[in-house]
């Protein structure tokens, strides 16, 4: 299991255990983390499962892929560490990861 801490825009926090091999989006949804909308179900089409990866995790999580980067342009509040959680696959290496959520996904 990979432990991930989600920090909401209002400061609420929730730590979940996700199975390695699932995407961060799937793990969040399976655990009822609010704010991960994911309308397209993980197809990198809707841009509504955005998270901001904590700075110390940038290296391990890596940056957005090409398609993801073009999707992220729908948002006005761009920030370092932004990823679509459907494009991040959980692995043991990411155990302890912290991500924060935007105020809005749209």
């Amino acid at each position, binding site marked *: 299991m990979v432990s991930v801490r989600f920090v909401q825009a209002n400061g609420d926090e929730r730590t979940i255990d996700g199975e390695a091999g699932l995407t961060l989006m799937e793990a969040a949804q399976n655990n009822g983390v*609010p*704010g991960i*909308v994911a*309308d*397209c*179900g993980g*197809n*990198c*089409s*809707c*841009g*509504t499962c955005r998270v901001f990866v904590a700075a110390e995790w940038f290296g391990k999580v890596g940056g957005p892929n*090409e*398609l993801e*980067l*073009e*999707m*992220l*342009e*729908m948002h006005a509040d761009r920030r370092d560490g932004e990823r679509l959680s459907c494009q991040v696959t959980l692995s043991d290496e990411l155990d302890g990861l912290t991500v924060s959520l935007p105020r*809005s*996904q*749209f």
Partner: protein
Amino acid sequence: MRLRGETEPMRNLAELDLPHLPVEDAAFAADPVSFFRKAKESNPWIAGSNLGYWIHDYQAIKDLLSKDDKLRPAYDGIVQMLGAHGTPWGRFTEEQLISLPPEQHAMLRTTFAKKFTPRFANQLRPMMQETIKRMLDEWAPKGAFDFEEFASSFPITVMFTLVGAPVEEIEGIRKSLETLGLAFSMDPNRVPEIHAAYDRLEKLVQRIIAERRADPRRGDKADLLDLLIDTSEEGNVPERQLEDLVIFFFVAGYDTSKNVLTYTIRLLLDRPDLYERCAVDHDYCRKVLDEGLRLFNPGSVPRFTDEDIVYRDVLLPKDTMLWFTLNVSGRDELAFDDPDTFNPDREIDPAARPIPFSLGRHMCLGQHIARAQLQEALHQIAQRLRNPKLAGEYGWRPYPGAWGLKGLPITFTPAEAPADA
């Protein structure tokens, strides 16, 4: 799949005493929301009809429609009901992107996804602005017109520009798209005109692809058609699939965008304050459109169950035809406060977000292009057609689709384009 109430006894769909909806009647198309609300009194989420079952509860739509692996698109079922299997339009409808088996669909969609991102849509904005400006230069001096007719020329002109199609064909193809859009009104009497309309569109698409292959545009001059041709070559996409895809973009983008723009203007006719704001606040136009799309959108999504599904203690047997009513889902009283009020400033709960572009693997590929073109159009329309007023009666297009207003006569005070537009 068992999503609720593990302990309740399960019942088969056929045993339920479901309300029957006259979806094919004109009275239904004029006010489906009231019919669905009435149906809800007998069953909170599902109703029957001559065309299949209707899932009309927002939460049920979300729960079920997102289960992509348990459903399959039912466009072949529509072709069957219309007796059009084996015809060119039938073939297209059964083989278009949305109808392909999951692996093929995923491959094709991934191949072309790069051309439908928000970045790409944003790059198209200057062209969209130029298109709507040219249209308004021609139409605004009239002082009165049928807004639906005006709106119908916009998405198709954008699409023609995107693929470099010959402008003299716009009017003919617009008529074809108008006819094709009525296919899902499920009236077999329309089938002969549907075939003629499809034939015209298919010939145009085959011609523009052949011409472009012979004379590609390169560098800055390359447009969406060059990109689609190049991408299809890189991805070894068969010619027939490339043609079907371009045909589908015309079909999928036409009356969806037109009907949304027309209905949004209908809403704004009653809210001159918000309309005024659209003229000066480009970003606010996006909010107005989002709220417009909640109150109205053209789509009912047809699916077959691909296995037995148990939902809310009801067994939906494999191969049952289900229609998901995206078009009225935003009016669900359980999901939205004060659902009939047009309020672009309403707070949207991320867990109850309107779903006009559907959900899951078939979620609208064109949504970012659609949103961009509607925003650019609304912003300029509000600047050029001042103080619009409703100038007569309007009607409704057949349900389920592509549903929307039939005609919207308006009068207004023409205004010049601002110097920087």
